[in-house]
Structure formats: structure tokens, C-alpha cells
């Protein structure tokens, strides 16, 4: 997928993450987390893998994590990317690139 415009998903509540994506020439991932010392590596891995499944090759992806579990991180990244393409409302490939 190609990030076409700036889009956001998620909140700054505890156990959630707020993900913002915007168009860019290269792929840049910025992660801020309340649990970065113990989970920074795993958060980054989840974000990178999720973007990989979605086929996102460029864009600025900013994650402000408040202790979200992997399943929440994935959901927020996916939603932000689909929103950036105006494709978040229907015919989502559940079980395809979303897994």
C-alpha cells in the first residue's frame, strides 16, 4: 500500500498506542514508548512486520505507545495505513494482509 495522506489511529490512553502515518520518500519509523527499555525492540519488530505485510515501502510512521500489546499495535498501524488510503471502511482483507 502507498501512504497517500496523513492519517492517525489510536489514542494516548494507557494500554493503547497512537499511530500517525504521512507520505514520505523513504520509510522512517519513530517510536516513543512508556515501556521502551523492556519492549522497544519488540514494538519496533511488530511495527516493521505489520508495515511489511501491508506492503508499505515509504512514509513517516510515528508510534506513541502507552503500553499497548502487540495485537493493539498491529490494529493501530493497520488502521492508520488504511485510513491514509481512504480504504478503512469496507472490504478489509481480514486474514489476508491483516493477520
Amino acid at each position, binding site marked *: 500500500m502507498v501512504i497517500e495522506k496523513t492519517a492517525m489511529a489510536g489514542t494516548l490512553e*494507557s*494500554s493503547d498506542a497512537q499511530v500517525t502515518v504521512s507520505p514520505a520518500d523513504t520509510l522512517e519509523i519513530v*517510536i516513543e514508548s*512508556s*515501556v*521502551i*527499555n*523492556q*519492549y*522497544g*525492540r*519488540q514494538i*519496533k519488530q511488530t511495527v516493521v512486520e505489520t508495515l511489511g505485510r501491508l506492503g508499505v515501502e515509504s512514509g513517516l510512521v510515528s508510534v506513541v505507545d*502507552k*503500553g*499497548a*500489546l*502487540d495485537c493493539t499495535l498491529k490494529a493501530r498501524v493497520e488502521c492508520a495505513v488504511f485510513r491514509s488510503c481512504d480504504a478503512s471502511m469496507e472490504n478489509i482483507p481480514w486474514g489476508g494482509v491483516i493477520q
Partner: protein
Amino acid sequence: MINAVGRDIPDYLLVDGKEVYQGRFAKDGQVMKRDAPTCVMNEKPVADKLCASIREACEKCGAHDGMTISFHHAFRNGDYTASMVCKVLVEEMGIKDLRVAATSLGDAHNLLADYIEQGIIVQVQASGVRGRIGDAISHGKLKEPAIIRSHGGRPRAMMAGELHIDIAFLAAASSDKVGNASGNGGKNNCGSMGYAMPDSRYADKVVVITDTLAPFPNVPASIKCEDVDCVVVVDEIGDPKRIGTKEARVTQDPRDLMMAERAADIIAATPWFVDGFSYQTGAGGPSLAVTRFLEERMDAKEIKMGVAFGGITGNMCDLQDRGYVRKIVDTQDFDTKAIAHLHDCPDHVEMTVSDYANPASKGAYVNYLDYMILAALEVDTKFNVNVITGSDGVVRGAPGGHPDTAAGSKCCIIVTPLVRGRMPTICKDVTTVTTPGECIDVVVTDYGTAVNPARRDIIDCLDAAGIPHVSIEYLQEKAYSIVGEPDPLKWEDKVVAIVEARDGTILDVIRQIKPYTFD
């Protein structure tokens, strides 16, 4: 050297008779000679001990570079006095190399964090360190490692001469002109002065700071005139409304309530739940909630609580007013209701923190405690508890009475959620050992209860009552299955804080945390 909880203590710290932790009762029976303060004789009749300013009192008491000063934390986040005094010492008098040995430090003391960063405060000894001071310590800003002691360990250190206080600055709600001081009777009351009382007896110089000058004699007094050198009257010593912070709130969270009810079931299933039982809870949400579930269980068995002690909340006072608690013996008050209750009710009395928890005594209250309910930041599969360092390795908590009550009580129950956000509470190894696992008997979580295998008697009680339990390893694995296994924290070599066991041996050390980088 590896100590009895498996922590590697650097040899360079093991000097001047300092030893590593050897087990919870290793020093039982050891003979000690108590230290005593220096006292200047006062034979002549004088009008009073009033000083016009904090500076004048500091000068009279011989304030000097490198001295050790102390404060108490009965006003918790509402304390004005520690910052006020330090500001005078540093900014008016230019004192350097200060050592601050407060009973606890927190968000009210950000000014002290500035002085730590500026190198003016060179050491901190306390039973708790929160807020920016914790950050400053963890990032290696102190010249010497901080020493963190339990509530009982602190008076022990004073009596052993390991902590010698040059000047104690003790905020008091009311005082007369000669230093008979109390936590009540003023415009800003804190209630019990249990933390301040040992300092008044073991510091060389004692300055009472009050905002309410009471007629002589201000009795009954917690701090007595025979121990006081100077009295200073200021505008405000603290804000009692800010004593009760979120740490001492009563929860409505269904998860907390579920765990609290389970803990109450466990209490009711064990043999010490008889008329006259003694009981204490920590100030965490789920811990406080246990008390409310005890009521119906006391009704069912037609028994009453003999004594509640330690830090007291309005809820406990309510319970006493309704006839469920014979005596409340109080080291600190967590809210304004408890403060007023201490003043008004004859069966609610003050006690010193030494009387409460000091192992270097002829038997403190904690030794007679039946049930202790506590919270934890982390519990590991050896049942070791951490209540000091956060998941980022930064000092942000207080052992308080945790190690003392856990060691002394017959049944010590930790109540904690299995995970907090993405933090696993039940883990393989706690970041810092603040209470040894051998003192912890039961861990209640929202995913199940684990009993320390050493407490076969408690396991049998739970089985007989049909209360399900699981192994601590099961809980740890469950936690990791939810949040993932945490990566180990990355530390520098530098030791920034020493965690002393209550008997004065070294339980653990905290090192400087490395800034996180993605590799």
C-alpha cells in the same frame, strides 16, 4: 559477593563492617549498643526557643558544609518544609555537600532534585524516592550512592550510629515556644508524627518548624521540649489536602475489587482470623479495598479486629467507628479524615516508626502482626518483591514498611494485577529486590493466586476452603504470554543506590540506567 537473594553486591561496598544480606532473621539475637545524640546542657531559665527565621535556627544549630539533615514526610506530596529549609541552606547560606536523610522524598521536592543536579546535595538516604529526585539519582547525579532503607531500617540505622543526623528539621502542625510539638492543633494538620519522633531523639540538633504557635505547654506532644533546640514559625508548613494522592485512593476498579475480595477470602480461610487479630494494609488501591471485604467476613465469624496499624486511612477509621476495630495504632495518616480521627478518638493513637517496625528493638509491633496486605511493582518466581524501580530502571517508589511488615507478619499477602499495561508484574527476576521472597507468603493476582511453597500450612488452609491456587511459575508464564518476555534492562557499572535490608545488610544495589537505543 552473592547474597541470600542471589544478588551480586560489589566488594567495594563491603567495608566498615558492611555485610551482604544473609536471610531474614540472620541478625536475631545480636547484641547492639545504641548510639546517642550530642546534647548541650541547658540549665539557665530562658523565655523561649523561638528563632525569627529558618536561617537563624540553622546558624544557632551550627549548620555547615557536609552536614546530614533530616525531614519527615507526613505531609507527603503536600510538604513545604523540606524545600523551604534546603532553599535557605543553599541559597541564603551557601551550604555545600549536603546529605539529606529524609524519611521519604517525592513530588513535593523537585527543588531538591535541582540541588542534586547542581551537585549541592551529594547524598540521599530515605525510605522512598519518587518524582524527579528518583530520576536524578538513577541518572547518576549523586556523588555517593543513595541509601534506601525500610521504615524500620531507618531508626535501626540511627540507633546503630550508621545514620547520624546533624540537624533534624521537623514540621509540626502546632508547637509551643519551647518545642512541645504535635501533628494536630494547627491550621495544617498531618496527624501522626510517627516518622518524626525517632529523629527528634537521635539528631544532634532538632528544629521544630510550625505555622501555628500554641500556648505553652502544647500537650500532649509528639515531639517533646527536652529534645528540641529551636522553634521557627513560618506561614505554611504544608497542605494536608495533598497527603491523600492517588497512591492512597480507594478503588472502584472491578479488577482491584475482585482481587481484594479473593484476598479477604484467604484471610478468612487461615487460622489467625480470630477475635483480636492484627492487620495492616499498604496504601495501594487493591490493598486498601481488602479491608472493605473483611467486614462481612468478621460478621460471619462474629469477631472483631484487635488492632489495625501502620498508615491509616479514613476507611479504617470508619470501620473502627462502626465497632469492628478495637485499637488503631498509627504511624501516618493518609487523609484528612484519619488526621481528625486520630485527634478525636481515644482508641486511635499515635506510634513512632521505631515502635512500629525497628528490628533493632526489643520487639516492634510488626513482630505481632497477623495479616499484612501489600502491593508490588514486580514479584518474581522466587517471590522476591520490587517496589522501588520502575520498568525503565528508574527509582520511583518506596519500600516504606514493606520489608518490615512482610518479615514480621504471620501471613503476608501481595495483591497485584498480573500485568499493568504491558508491564508483567509477575516476572522471572525482579529489577530490584526490596523485600526478600522468604517473607512473602501469598500473591493474589487477577489471573490466580500463588502461595509460597514454603508455606505448606497456608496451602492446606486454601485447599480446605476450596480456594483455587496456582504456581508462581504459572502466573509468570501467563504474564509473559500476554505481554511478551521483557528484554533485560541495560545498566552502567556505576551503583547509584544501595538497598539496605532492614537489619542493615545489603539486599541489592541499583545501577545507573543506560539511555535506550534501538540497535
